[in-house]
């Protein structure tokens, strides 16, 4: 390389609309290739895990390698439940997308293609552990068994809405299900999660914390704050980075720059870091268990980059065909998480195409039934509005005089 004068670079995605999807530069390694690091590993020794890709399911649907052994107690029943979890969300996402199109809610965000991450992670958590999620981690809520009524109630801002209409539809919150209040401001939750984890340690409550962030939002200041403070104080936290290749219309290269991987960036902060196939339910299950065990036992924070692809548009306000090839998701070299777990279960004779179709129909039926019941309480088009006076509540624990005067003035 011979250069003469400085010139700026502008990172580009592998393909644009009207070009063929091209993932030839994505190195996915080989399933089963990477080992399980010692539980007390330090960042310096994490290089292969941060730069490589931990995979368990191979192309034939077999679980292979040391990470498969690490979870050899995980039985097919558990995995079948995992498949159901993922199918539930995908169905829910489709129903809610339709509801948004019908004007029944103002906004929706799907997590299509990323279901394995939240579903498998959540099932390794214990009661009292706290997630600090983004708007794209409804999978955590579903796998935690959050009430579908409450979830939909919030989407419709009707009387079932536990947020009483204050928050955007997708910004759930459920303390008892370990799901922290979601902010619209990207990144902010990541350093808050570190604070919560510090409180875990300071109050010795025996719980741990999981922070969540998207690849695009790793650019935020709070991402840096969180890695830094986790490195300094060593609280019990798993710092999850969901790298789904896109931030609205912006390719992940604009967030990564020349960093090899997001895991490698975290490793620079002295935090042991791993990079994992996020479309592989078993890999997510195995690495989550390893990381949570480490953290729970007091060996300090871990960062995990979940490598995946955002199959859906960013949100209902977005049209990805303007900035990437229409069929790019199909070309993703790591496939679809539901298809892959299904294949594994079929290979192991715990599932079949018929059961799959049946289950799908049954889930659709269940969800549609709930949906109808929830919609009876009102939607955006069929509005049974909550009292507007609610908006003066919970600004403070006790309503101060000036707000009382304003509420009076408002006439509500």
């Amino acid at each position, binding site marked *: 390389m011979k250069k003469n004068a400085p010139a700026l670079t502008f990172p580009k995605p592998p393909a*644009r609309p009207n070009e063929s999807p091209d993932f030839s530069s994505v190195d996915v390694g080989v399933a089963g290739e990477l080992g399980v690091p010692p539980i007390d590993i330090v960042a310096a020794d994490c290089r292969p895990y941060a730069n490589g890709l931990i995979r368990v399911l191979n192309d034939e649907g077999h679980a292979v390698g040391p990470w498969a052994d690490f979870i050899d107690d995980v039985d097919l029943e558990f995995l079948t439940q995992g498949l159901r979890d993922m199918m539930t969300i995908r169905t829910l996402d489709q129903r809610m997308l339709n509801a948004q199109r019908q004007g029944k809610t103002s906004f929706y965000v799907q997590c299509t293609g990323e279901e394995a991450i939240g579903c498998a992670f959540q099932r390794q958590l214990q009661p009292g552990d706290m997630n600090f999620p983004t708007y794209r981690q409804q999978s955590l809520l579903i796998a935690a068994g959050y009430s579908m009524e409450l979830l939909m109630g919030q989407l419709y801002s009707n009387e079932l809405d536990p947020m009483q209409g*204050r928050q955007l539809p997708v910004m759930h919150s459920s303390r008892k299900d370990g799901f922290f209040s979601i902010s*619209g401001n990207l990144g902010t939750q990541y350093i808050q999660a570190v604070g919560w984890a510090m409180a875990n340690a300071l109050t010795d409550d025996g719980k741990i914390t999981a922070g969540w962030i998207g690849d695009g939002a790793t650019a935020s200041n709070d991402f840096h704050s969180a890695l830094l403070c986790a490195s300094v104080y060593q609280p019990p936290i798993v710092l999850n980075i969901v790298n789904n290749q896109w931030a*609205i219309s912006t390719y992940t290269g604009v967030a990564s720059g020349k960093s090899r991987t997001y895991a490698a960036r975290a490793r620079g902060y002295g935090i042991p870091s791993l990079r994992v196939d996020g479309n592989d339910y078993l890999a997510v299950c195995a690495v989550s268990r390893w990381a949570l065990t480490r953290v729970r036992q007091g060996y300090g924070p871990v960062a995990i980059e979940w490598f995946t692809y955002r199959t859906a548009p960013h949100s209902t306000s977005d049209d990805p065909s303007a900035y990437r090839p229409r069929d790019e998701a199909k070309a993703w070299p790591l496939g679809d998480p539901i298809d892959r777990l299904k294949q594994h279960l079929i290979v192991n004779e715990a599932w079949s195409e018929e059961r799959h179709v049946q289950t799908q129909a049954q889930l659709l039926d269940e969800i549609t039934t709930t949906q109808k019941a929830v919609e009876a309480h009102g939607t955006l088009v069929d509005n049974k509005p909550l009292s507007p006076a609610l*908006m003066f509540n919970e600004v403070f624990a006790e309503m101060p005089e000036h707000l009382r005067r304003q509420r009076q003035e408002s006439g509500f």
Partner: protein
Amino acid sequence: MAMSMVEALRDAMDVKLAEDPGVVIFGEDVGYFGGVFRCTAGLQEKYGEQRVFDTPINESAIVGMAIGMATHGMRPCVEMQFADYMYPAYDQITQEAARMRFRSNGQFTCPMVIRMPTGGGIFGGQTHSQSPEALFTHVAGLKTVIPSTPYDAKGLLIAAIEDPDPVIFLEPKRLYNGPFNGDHQAKSVSWSQHPDGEVPPDHYTVPLGKAAIRCSGNEVTVLAYGTMVYVAQAAAEESGVDAEIIDLRTLLPLDLDTVQQSVEKTGRCVVVHEATKTSGFGAELIAEVQEACFWHLKAPIQRITGWDAPYPHAAEWDYFPGPKRLGAALVKAMKY
């Protein structure tokens, strides 16, 4: 040429990109895609990615880079995707850009524009609806501008890009595609049916620091800006009060002369904004007006504003200061 406000803003940037090689445009999703509100659509294709580009999701980095370029001599015009996301950049905006000229005694200056969609009315909830103007007007060294028509949007944005100092350019997102008077159930009107949707194709400016009288009247002066200009018109019509409606256009520096003349004539004043009430820009307007026009005032100055709560999602139309609330204030003012 009929233009929406989005098109007028885009046209302003287009004119300046063509005229001045120092102008660069950047922000989240503004490059290839052309912005989530489409304000920069087509500009990267036309001028190349050296002039119009995407950034990481880091607002303080966007402003910090702009400061570096502006002090070097370029004229960056950057976008915050929503005004609600400027908060991480608040340090760079207020402590750096605003006072670079002052602290370096003019050695380094910051001719730059920070555009941001502002205000509610799109069911955006608390983090897509805020109006942070008072957080800028309190800061010495910043100019704060907010247009209410496509014509002004283009002329003010060109003036802002040409200004030698940092300008905060608030874009009332509810006006992007048409005038909006607060009646959310009415059919939406497009700018092509509105006289101020007529926008000359070439270079022109609307000077910073000059208000516009949108509607003359004799009984009450309404001080408004952005979306509230149309709400004020609707309120005046519905209430039948003969209101003089002033569109401030620039909040700082404020066109106090125009305001004072009007209030001295009408003897009554109502200020209106979407932002939370306490310490909003309305307070500043009241402080100035009561001092300048004390002996002319026949009634206390009222303010009609967003409530002192975060912008709620579902109840947004009860939060938004609509024509009914404002109309009632006009009637009340007349009762004194």
